[in-house]
């Protein structure tokens, strides 16, 4: 592989990886706070893609479509949390996990019933010009994805580090019970975390729909699992870790396919996941878990 191909694949990989990162952030924030692997998150991303598609079909531009998708997913995720997870807080760890699998099946079937199982194409919303920068080519769609992802991630970082709610989130993820003793409304913080994750996933859904020109009810399954891998590889609970993990898996997947491992495409992310877990059990940027007696 010569330098030009390598650089080109890096650009493609980073584009794919930043969409993984957008989904992975939702997994990692929720896990950081309530230690739940939210398997329904991939389906929230799928709903975001469908809402965005519906808006575009109705004639909205891409920014409005992303915005409406974000609002819709926010409502969906907060409802899911309220109905399916909150009653199970304080019961055994596996209970909300099973509940999330139930929600995931429900949402997938609902969308399949409403829209049919076949992939739907995404209408052209922006004129896609291809720019040549030095050795590599980059398209308008890719630039839009990279810019939106970067803006959202910086926004998220500002919310977590600079706002009062962000401080409450960090305190809750440190220790939920102590945080509630300090007067933090833990339920509100958890709802807010789900909302933030859903907003990012919705943007990811619309962007991916536009990038791959296809939206279908099961699109959240593989993307969700890989994004989840990305969160674990980066160190689950760590926000920069999720971004790093997403980019890492995206680049690895694209390079793997370019090197002729196309038929093993879906195994690349999981192989890396296992390798990283074996050598750094808490992920690249994760804090090692303390075992207390």
């Amino acid at each position, binding site marked *: 592989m010569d330098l030009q191909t390598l650089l080109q694949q890096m650009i493609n990989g980073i584009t794919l990886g930043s969409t993984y990162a957008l989904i992975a952030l939702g997994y990692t924030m929720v896990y950081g706070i309530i*230690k739940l*692997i939210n*398997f329904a998150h991939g389906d929230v991303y799928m709903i975001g893609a469908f809402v965005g598609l519906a808006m575009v079909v109705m004639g909205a531009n891409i920014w409005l479509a992303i915005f409406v998708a974000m609002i819709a997913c926010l409502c969906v995720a907060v409802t899911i949390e309220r*109905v*399916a997870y909150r*009653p*199970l807080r304080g*019961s*055994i760890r*596996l*209970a*909300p*996990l*099973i*509940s999330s*699998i*139930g*929600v*995931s*099946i*429900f*949402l*997938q*079937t*609902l969308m399949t*019933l409403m829209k049919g199982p076949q992939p739907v194409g995404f209408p052209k919303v922006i004129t896609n010009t291809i720019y040549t920068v030095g050795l590599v080519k980059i398209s308008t769609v890719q630039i839009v994805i990279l810019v939106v992802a970067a803006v959202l991630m910086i926004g998220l970082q500002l919310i977590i580090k600079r706002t009062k709610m962000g401080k409450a989130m960090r305190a809750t993820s440190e220790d939920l019970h102590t945080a509630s003793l300090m007067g933090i409304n833990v339920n509100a913080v958890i709802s807010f975390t789900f909302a933030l994750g859903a907003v990012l996933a919705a943007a990811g859904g619309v962007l991916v729909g536009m990038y791959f020109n296809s939206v279908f009810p099961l699109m959240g399954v593989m993307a969700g*699992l890989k994004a*989840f*891998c990305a969160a*674990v590889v980066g160190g*689950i609970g760590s926000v920069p870790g999720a971004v790093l993990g997403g980019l890492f898996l995206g680049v690895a997947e694209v390079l793997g396919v370019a090197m002729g491992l196309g*038929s*093993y495409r*879906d*195994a690349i992310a*999981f*192989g890396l*996941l*296992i390798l990283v*877990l*074996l050598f750094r*059990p*808490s992920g690249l940027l994760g804090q090692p*878990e303390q*075992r207390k*007696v």
Partner: protein
Amino acid sequence: MSMLDDFLRQFINPYYIQVLMLLGIYLIAALGLHLITGVTGQLSFGHAAFMSVGAYGAALINLHLDLPFLICLLAGGLLAALAGVFVGFPSMRLAGDYLGIATLGFGEILRVVFMNLEITGGARGLAGIPRETSLLTIYVLVILTIFALHRLQNSRFGRALVAIREDEIAAECMGIKSLWYKVGAFAIGSFFAGIAGGLYAHLLQYLNPGDFGFARSFELLCFVVLGGLGSIPGTVLGTTILTLAPEVLRFSSEYRMMMYGLLMVIMMIFRPRGLLGGVDLMRLVKRVLGSRRRGTATPAG
């Protein structure tokens, strides 16, 4: 084909016999997972992968070596147990959710490998497996599995597994080598998954790597958790309800899977520890019998 199947076929719709056979197969696989997750407390999201090892193992041995069915089945189970040990050793450095995630990754890798191998028929799947499984074989094996697991749980080994589930550090302090016991539990649980896989292969006569994806692993985990973690009757009940639910919900035709998902959420909300979680069935039966006996002995009070 056993005589019993032909006999039953005259009275029961063959479709229902097929459903009952699948139920038995899932029971065996779920009971294996019960040992790993319910008794030992180790999260596994890759149980279907062990099923696939057993299924492909048994089917390929039968197709290429032409050995008797039960030997193929056993070989499939042993191969799955070997895979369990292979996955178990490195994974045991990981605890809790991380172990679950690693097994999920393993399962997905295995599915993709089966999808690409020449000998397993690749993405086209493996066809032409003879039909050897019968209702009788399956339910004899279900009863054997329940018996074996019941004996195992009440042995020294089983008590060590429960100790690890309750508190691994305390168990280590009591001299239990938790690594060996955890890998042992993984191997035995995978063995049963392998047996179930072999039965599955010789029932459907066709294998496709897609049959053993993470969705099936999650399904098995749901069986175990919904029934009641750590309880054999709970696992049997959970598996039975969730396997038959889609058949019962058939009246709602296309809304079936939606209601299935909803059912899972509702069951979890009302019984977060599972249907029989925290219920000791033997003690319950004894108490009911005991109170009745006491009632007849002292009618006055």
